């Protein structure tokens, strides 16, 4: 997936669409938009960072899961099998992107599944469908004719925390470094 942050207006529609599509209980979010404000008047900027599971090529959660509940599908989507997960939360300890949560009702770990049930039916994930400005582009990054692959090649792209060697598959155009950092105000 490519997220074009030049287009993102921080409307949180993706968040809501995701929660509706996947019937996510209160208090947890598989996908959300982090917002930061920086500078002081008149030189200010508000930056957005839509976050979701990166479906890494080299996912650390796959190594960690003791029951193989987390697995990678042939098309690259990383999924948690809700019937195998024992809820030990080790994957939450190893994921550098903090996208995993404990399902408050089922008491297992869940996360964004790229709406695999929709992808299997030939549809796009709910957040992509709902995005009001078309900032999210979904598709097969390996197929050079697809829009994602073209955007990936022709634009300067960045991933979150590339230094971890997980090779994330969510690419951002115009990523703000300050939005990725967990350090809040006052420290810098």
């Amino acid at each position, binding site marked *: 997936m490519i997220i074009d942050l030049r287009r993102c207006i921080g409307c949180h529609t993706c968040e809501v669409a995701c929660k509706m599509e996947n019937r996510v209980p209160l208090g947890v979010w598989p996908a959300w938009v982090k*917002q930061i404000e920086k500078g002081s008047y008149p030189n200010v900027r508000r930056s957005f960072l839509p976050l979701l599971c990166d479906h890494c090529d080299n996912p650390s959660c796959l190594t960690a899961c003791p*029951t*193989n509940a987390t697995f990678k599908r042939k098309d690259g989507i990383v999924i948690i099998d809700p019937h195998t997960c*024992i*809820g030990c939360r080790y994957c*939450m300890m*190893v*994921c*550098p992107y903090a996208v995993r949560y404990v399902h408050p009702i089922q008491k297992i770990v869940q996360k964004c599944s790229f709406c695999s049930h929709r992808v299997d039916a030939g549809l796009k994930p709910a957040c992509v469908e709902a995005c009001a400005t078309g900032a999210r582009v979904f598709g097969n990054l390996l197929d050079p004719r697809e829009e994602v692959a073209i955007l990936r090649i022709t634009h300067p792209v960045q991933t979150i925390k590339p230094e971890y060697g997980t090779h994330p598959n969510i690419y951002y155009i115009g990523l703000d470094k300050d939005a990725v950092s967990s350090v809040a105000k006052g420290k*810098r």
Partner: protein
Amino acid sequence: MIEILYNVEHQKAAGIFIAIYFYLTGISAGSFILSTLAYVFGQTKFKPIGRIAVILATVVLIIAPLALLIHVGRPFRAWRLFYNINFASPISWGSFLLTFYPINCIIYGYFIFKNNAKMTKLFGIIGIPLAIAVHGYCGFILGFAKARHLWNTALMPTLFLVSAIVSGIALVIFVVYIKDRFFSQDGKVREELILDLAKLMGGFLLLDLFLVLSEVLILLAGSEGAMEAGWLLLTGKFAIPFLGIENGLGKILPAFLIFSPRLRTTNRLLWASFLVMFGIFFMRFVVVLAGEYYPLI
């Protein structure tokens, strides 16, 4: 100036039950290794404590996995750990170690009480690598967590093992003293034995201090997250538990009590062992809770 307007923070992955579990396995592994000193390595002066140590090791390790079962969301699915095995995951290794180690402890303890020296030695020899593994893998659990800089260090398994031995010896000193004082016929404490044990503990305490020092110093020389974690321990919210309780009360003060001939009395050695147990308990809490103190994103 940067201000975070909206962000989502999910639940913490490891909590107090993980810390308690690490503490209990540590005590168990430590006291098991202590009991093998007499029966495998032939240190006959430690023979009187062999039985107490092996009982402690077994009982504590039977309690320890209960903390894990409270922690996991679906404890009745624990059988999946033996069915869907992922050999890359330390928790998978642990599920087997936590099965074989208590069984071995029970067999070993049985032969100690039967006075069967040959079989005791055999199961002691089997038990030593198991005891090291059952606590070493706890260090690997944290070491494999690449998201957190405080945990993701090569020193973590060694640090866990050394603190396990320290806390195991401390518990054995404590129990030997209580048993001799209140539950034996003459109420006489074996001072020589306790002094020997305390000196052994003191040596491992100094090693533990050195490992903690090198861990923190290298964190401060690391990447941004590592420096954050290091300063959190030294000046942040965890400064008092880490510097004051874990290292001050739990390591430096007992080391003085043990190694200074003027301060040393058997009563104080009892206090030293109590402080050590208390300090290691805080060490587990500090490592587990400080590791995921800062949000990742």
